[in-house]
């Protein structure tokens, strides 16, 4: 069974914290240009689409991926299979 990350854009409120912690997890900085999770927003700051890049390792060493543990809108989900 494989796991992958999915985002419910209807619930996402646009704080972009997931992008920040993802960059920290991967590179120990907060450069979101290289985050594995990328959400694009319109001029209302409403999320319109997202991308999970190959670098996403679901934070294997952690019980919960960092993006999920910081997300307060509970819009991030792990998909199984």
């Amino acid at each position, binding site marked *: 069974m494989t796991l992958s990350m999915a985002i419910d854009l209807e619930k996402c*409120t646009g704080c972009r914290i997931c992008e*920040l*912690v993802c960059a920290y997890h991967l590179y*120990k900085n907060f450069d979101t240009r290289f985050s594995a999770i990328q959400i694009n*927003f319109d*001029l*209302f700051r409403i999320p319109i689409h997202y991308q999970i890049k190959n670098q996403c390792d679901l934070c294997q060493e952690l019980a919960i991926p960092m993006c999920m543990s910081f997300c*307060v809108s509970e819009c991030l989900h792990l998909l199984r299979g």
Partner: protein
Amino acid sequence: MYYNGWVGKIAWIDLSKEKITIEPIDQYKDWIGGRGLASYLLFEHLPESAEALSAENIIVFSTGPLTGTMSSSSARLNITSKNALTSGYASANAGGFFAVALKRAGFDAIAVKGVANNPVYIFVNEGEIQIRNGNELWGLTVKGVGDYFEKEFSKNNLSYLCIGPAGEKLCKIANVVVDSGRSASYGGLGATMGFKKLKAIVVSGKAPVGIAHPDDFLSIVRKSFDKLMGGHWIKLIRRHGTLITMLGGIDGKGSQVVRNYQDCYWEGQKILKLNPINFEPYIIRRLTCFSCPIECSRLYRFIDREGNTNFFEGLQANHITDLGSIIDVDDLETILRASALVNNLGLDADGVGCSLAWAFECFEKGLLSKDECDGLDLSWGNYKVVDGLILRIAQRVGIGDLLADGALEASRKLGRGSEKYAMHIKGSPLRETIYPDMAWTLGVAVSTRGSGHLNGAVRLNRLQYLNQGESMDSSPETMGRLVAWFENFKSLVDSLGICYFTTIWTDSEGLGPIELAELFRTVTGIKKDSEELLKIGARVQNIEKAFNTLHAGFTRMDDFPPERLFVNAVSNGPHKGSILNKTNWDKLLNAYYEVRQYDLPSGLQKKECLDELEMLSVKDRLASKGMIK
């Protein structure tokens, strides 16, 4: 050079000369950033002879070292200029994403002076700045500007701020709208931009903000998020948005502003009609600012009278007063529609509310006839005229032209004894609840931006942060200390570039000065303890006070609320019989001035106050004008 916290540059843009100059941030770090940085720039560079609406005036868009980091609610943009309403200091603050984008584009601040020949907008793109032709934008609403940029740039993650038609028409109650729904109001900043023919600034930036100690920083952020989410008030705001603070609380037992302060009690059934829960059917999603776990904002949808579907973000708690109780309107859809309208036209709802309330009262008292009101019936509670009046203000048409510069200026133009119905402090609109906490009222009255609760106004139950272990009392001395402490604290918060909502001002589980010192250290690598940081807050407060003294000549008499509040007692409800008392207000001011080291009879700063804060150039400038004691 590599920076942590700051990104290194201030851009000076002269619209008259179409010249852009870049200055390093380094020499200004003692003022931290955001409001502190901007206050210093304005004080140093703007002569007293400059009018707010002039080419000389400078408008500063600034961020702080925590802006754009993962500190909670680190999205704040400060906008500072000379105040079009008071002639003193103007400062407004907005969230969204703009401030973050500006830093990611490589700028801590942009300072704009001069006047463009034709309408322009500024495009900040990954370290480059262009002044672009804005003819096609002139005349557009806030939403229209967003639509234009979406077509023009066809890329995601842009952010913009702009003025609406009201700013173009130089309405002194016009604001600047950030990210289409976050308003930077107070001080007529929309008119200041409009005078400069600067319609908008649009930013695209992706570079990160450097963090000196990422591991320690993240650990502090984690703890602060967890603590914050357990807070009682934070839970309520997450559940209801900012509307939870409307009308003094969901149960309506707080103090209200009714019929232009004729009363501070509103009948219970009217309040219940505007309960936050009744707005929920119009909410289509929750929104938040960058790196903010509080999620106080909402996107609303409603159908207007023409049958068009409208989406807007800007409804805030103060709108329930500004577009409701202050003119006795309890119609929910009117408030919703009017809120969207002021936002889209670029008007400050507080300024609009005060102007409307003054006009309604003049109508009631026979000082304004129906003919003079363009045939509109301005009777208390007549919700049908609200939209039309707002449109008239933004376009400066008919009665709207009179109301567009705020209630004080309108009353001066009209005369007829209408001055006593202009509810203002220092010329800035007053629409604050007055009871029960005098610390709140005092903080509003002595605010450096003229009025408003976002400086030293504070609930008395925040006393624990002033003096732990001391019993709470409501003596003038205690309230004076409390307000002065929170003025310093808020100056610090605004200079760091984070939101007041995420601090102990809102919730005891929020960030306090010790946490802010830790965040500042781990982000910038500079170690300053909380007392040192609060001292910087005190310096910011004092440079703004000095600016007000030099530019507007404010003294003790300007720190008094309007006469009406000393005459009208509350008619009913939990605060029945409450009234301000001149003797007590004098005691309150004296106590506050003692803490601030201001001269009691005049309200001016004393030399020793500025000596202690090592503000010698400020002291000398005040002394050269004989404006220091």
